[in-house]
């Protein structure tokens, strides 16, 4: 049997590794590069170009060069919104249909594109090892849902690989650094990559790696920082009178590349110069970006890692002091601002001893070795990141397997009928943490058919939900009468027939329009009232610090807003009055904010 390789299929870069005689080995490509850009270029004729060569082509032909495809894995058309506008290639898909990339009349799927990257890694590994390679362990973000995991597995199969296991990236990183570690420890893994963020808390004891909790955001990473810098550069180009250039995809691609380079440079330097000659005819972009400017731009992105960390610690029922270490993984964890946040959140200096780009692939290779029967002293016990549930009466989510349950796991549920002689029961399966079914992610629906005619509530159909070691769900229905078991085919809404999708979309648009006008007014009224309350508080405490004219302006704006709310005016009118109040109170807000900061410093000191 051939060896099992470990693959970190990343948003920006991918890495392949293998364990050779107990030593981990990151496999370089023919040019000696250890990181393969997850970029695929589709030329008009001939085979797709993958990796570094494709990355360079992105600047020349942005419309046919696909990158950050991982963001679209297992996603529906309706979910792609902001991601689709952030990339320079076309993205199609609507409603519940899958996201695709239309190029030359072909609809490429994210799996298909990822398979090209995987194929290249497989071939690089085969060339390096001098033997055929057809088995792999592939990593996914811990916070990936069922569809995203399935899509990754299918991508591996399309690349001609037997996917022996799907494992979570932070867990893999822990495995990589835990090789040969003897003493018991509790560690947090903070993994901020190109497009995804995970945080996992693990307990390592006698070779058993037990994940206690995990949390994250599958749409947060270095890409978003690049986009923030790109927006800044675009603003400057427009200010310098060359806004028309921004309609050219090649220009935007060059700006994005410059943004990324600047971000990387500013992890070690205090400032960096961005020069893009001939961005337009007779126009060169030349400017200096400082680290503090960059930090101002990326703060909203970095700040989003805070909540998942607090949640993961809370779910593990641990305080930062109870941890033995924090491991940094992912290219974006090199950013000083990120490290500062980690330090504050976990109250310790993070461990930067492992290579943040390679640890995940090495961990995957380690898992491969475990599956080959080496390392029988090591065992990985991972968890399911999201609660699994079914929709119940009143559109509520009924959790049957809570998040952070050790996998493999299973849960049984018994279903019955609602009306007399009902022959089939429809069940909606969900993943997520929200109370309302509709707020969670719909994994799929299935029908239990062939129910014997009986009064409502009499039939009993047992359904067993099993989550396997890859974190993927399997459903088994058991007829209570005959005791027969059968595997239920879950209809993932990602592959519903197009007609059904269109009908669903139409229905929802119709209903939405009816409610929208009324809801907009109510929402605007509530917002207005909230603002008025805050202004009153501010005036009561700081009114004496405002001069007469300013006070008059505020008072006048308040009267207008109050009247607009009281008279039941249109949402737009309330909105306009709201903005007047907002504008008139800028200085007041500043005063209040300064006071809040002062009190904060007092409370801290």
């Amino acid at each position, binding site marked *: 049997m051939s060896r099992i390789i470990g693959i970190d299929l990343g948003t920006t870069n991918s890495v392949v590794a293998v364990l050779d005689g107990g030593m981990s080995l990151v496999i370089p490509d023919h040019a000696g590069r250890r990181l393969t850009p997850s970029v695929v270029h589709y030329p008009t004729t001939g085979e797709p170009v993958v990796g570094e060569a494709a990355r360079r082509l992105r600047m020349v032909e942005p419309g046919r060069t696909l990158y950050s495809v991982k963001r679209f894995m297992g996603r529906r058309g309706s979910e792609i919104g902001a991601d689709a506008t952030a990339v320079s290639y076309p993205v199609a898909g609507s409603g519940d249909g899958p996201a695709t990339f239309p190029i030359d009349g072909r609809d490429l799927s994210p799996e298909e594109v990822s398979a090209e990257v995987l194929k290249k890694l497989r071939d690089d590994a085969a060339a390096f090892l001098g033997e055929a390679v057809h088995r792999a362990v592939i990593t996914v973000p811990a916070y990936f849902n069922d569809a995203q995991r399935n899509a990754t597995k299918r991508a591996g199969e399309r690349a001609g690989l037997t996917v022996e296991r799907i494992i979570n990236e932070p867990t893999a990183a822990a495995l990589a650094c835990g090789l040969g570690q003897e003493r018991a420890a509790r560690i947090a893994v903070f993994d901020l990559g190109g497009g995804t963020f995970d945080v996992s808390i693990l307990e390592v004891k006698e070779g058993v790696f037990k994940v206690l909790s995990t949390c994250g955001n599958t749409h947060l990473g270095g890409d978003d920082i690049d986009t923030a810098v790109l927006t800044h550069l675009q603003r400057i180009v427009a200010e310098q009178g060359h806004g028309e250039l921004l309609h050219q995809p090649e220009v935007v691609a060059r700006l994005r590349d410059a943004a990324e380079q600047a971000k990387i440079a500013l992890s070690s330097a205090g400032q960096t110069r961005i020069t893009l000659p001939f961005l337009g005819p007779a126009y060169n972009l030349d400017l200096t970006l400082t680290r503090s400017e960059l930090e101002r731009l990326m703060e909203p992105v970095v700040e989003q890692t805070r909540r998942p960390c607090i949640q993961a610690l809370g779910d593990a029922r641990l305080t930062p002091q109870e941890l033995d270490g924090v491991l940094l993984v992912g290219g974006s964890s090199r950013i000083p601002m990120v490290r500062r946040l980690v330090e504050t959140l976990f109250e310790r200096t993070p461990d930067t001893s492992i290579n943040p780009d390679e640890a995940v692939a090495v961990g995957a290779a380690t898992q491969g070795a*475990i599956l080959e029967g080496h390392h029988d002293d090591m065992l990985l016990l991972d968890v399911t990141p999201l609660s699994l549930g079914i929709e119940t009466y009143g559109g509520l989510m009924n959790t049957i397997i809570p998040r952070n349950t050790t996998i493999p796991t299973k849960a049984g549920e018994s279903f019955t009928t609602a009306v007399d002689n009902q022959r089939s029961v429809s069940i909606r399966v969900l993943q997520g943490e929200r109370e309302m079914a509709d707020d969670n992610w719909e994994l799929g629906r299935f029908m239990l058919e062939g129910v014997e005619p009986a009064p409502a509530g009499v039939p009993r159909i047992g359904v067993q939900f099993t989550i396997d070691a890859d974190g993927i769900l399997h459903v088994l229905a058991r007829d209570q009468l005959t005791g027969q078991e059968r595997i239920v085919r879950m209809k993932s809404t990602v592959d519903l027939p197009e007609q059904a999708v269109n009908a669903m979309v139409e229905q929802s648009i119709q209903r939405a329009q009816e409610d929208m006008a009324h809801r907009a007014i109510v929402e605007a009224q509530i917002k207005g009232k909230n603002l008025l309350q805050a*202004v009153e508080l*501010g005036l009561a405490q700081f009114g004496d610090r405002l001069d007469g004219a300013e006070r008059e302006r505020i008072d006048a704006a308040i009267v207008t807003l109050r009247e607009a709310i009281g008279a039941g005016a249109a949402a737009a009118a309330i909105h306009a009055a709201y903005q007047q109040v*907002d504008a008139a109170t800028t200085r007041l807000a500043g005063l*209040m*904010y300064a006071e809040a900061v002062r009190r*904060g410093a007092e409370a801290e000191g």
Partner: protein
Amino acid sequence: METLQVKCQSCNRQLSSFFCQECRTVVPVPRGVDYFRYLGIPQRPLVDHDRLEATYLRLSQEYHPDRHPDLDAVQRAAILQRSALLNQAYACLKEPKQRVQYLVALLTQGERNPSRAIPPAVATLFRQVQTALSEVDGYLREAERPKSALEAAAFALGRTARDDHRNTLRRCHASIHAQQDEAVAQLVAIDALWDQPGEQSEEAFHRLAALADTLSYLDRLEGQVHDRRVKLQMVTLPLRPSASPAPFSPMDRA
């Protein structure tokens, strides 16, 4: 000491798990095997945690699919079920609430419905916690709401509110923990009566059933308080003058 004893169906060997290493086959679990028997630990209110943990780790090594990449599809599906059941059983038995509920259900064949009424023992605590939760939830809703610059400033000005809520929740937690400790003490007492003959064991069962309801309430309250404490931690207020302004959500983004 009671341990797991299984007989391999094909080679008749005495095994200590439902997998025969010799034949490389998964042994069927007989009907009526409960979580206790599945793990080979005594069926009673108290468990020896070290032993439970050790058994769990040993059986994980036996059943985990990572240990059996060589099995065929049928055997592989079977070992997945063993492993899933192991995790399920362990998760149930290690926590007092789940364990006691499970044991009561087992002994009554699921006939006893948990009481809907609030057990008198937790009535006062229940009111204390619900009052605190509704106050904290109001604060959290306010914190979550998209705000204009002025509103964010006004919210930040009331910074002591967050500390007040924290302290309230801390007090709730302390009260809950005190009652949970008391419940565990009762569990120890019940466990001591468990092997006694006749009336005493009858009494032990009734006390256990009552305790199941109390534990269930305490567990739910504890979970709610814990959840709000985590959420409060997520509320960020400006701390240092050097810190950039709180994340304002502009009106038109909402």
